[in-house]
């Protein structure tokens, strides 16, 4: 599946995993502060 010499077959699995991780970190940071905000009302 991973054949760098045939770019049309290149599936960036690692980059997809990275992107999922990025979104997960984003959710943790954002909702962390969101609930902090709600607790301070």
């Amino acid at each position, binding site marked *: 599946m991973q054949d760098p010499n045939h770019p049309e077959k290149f*599936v*960036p699995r690692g*980059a*997809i995993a990275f*992107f999922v991780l990025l*979104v997960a970190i*984003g*959710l943790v940071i*954002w*909702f962390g502060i*969101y609930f902090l*905000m*709600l607790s*301070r*009302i």
Partner: protein
Amino acid sequence: MIDKFERNVIITAFCLSGLFIFSLLYAMGARKADVTECLPYDKSYETARVNQVDKSTYQIFYVARMWNFEPAIAYIPVGSEVDLFVTSLDVVHGFNIYNKNVNLMGVPGGVAKTTIRFDQPGVYKVVCHEFCGTGHQNMQAEIIVNFPKK
């Protein structure tokens, strides 16, 4: 036209934004979490005072100037709902209550307003967080929530 993974990234980013926006609207509607209200300005805001509206509703009119807030100390009973109004008589000041969802700018010619409940007794420190001149780091006030003592 565009790579399918790129397209999925764009869709995911839109969904994430949608989730954040929905959460903000929920907080605004259900918990009244909002930013400064936009009020027309008049001279009465330039007089610092504490008003009791009814048994558990208060208004504090803050006047900021280089380098103090008036009232420097305000006494509020536990469990009251307080409307805060902030304006400045000279330069731009900041108004942030420690551990509370209050974060306003004191701007000459404008009045910032928000509403907050004080359910826990304590001394709530107010800090000026906008640079307002050489005495900026001294500029502080207190809201003492335990009055009358129970």
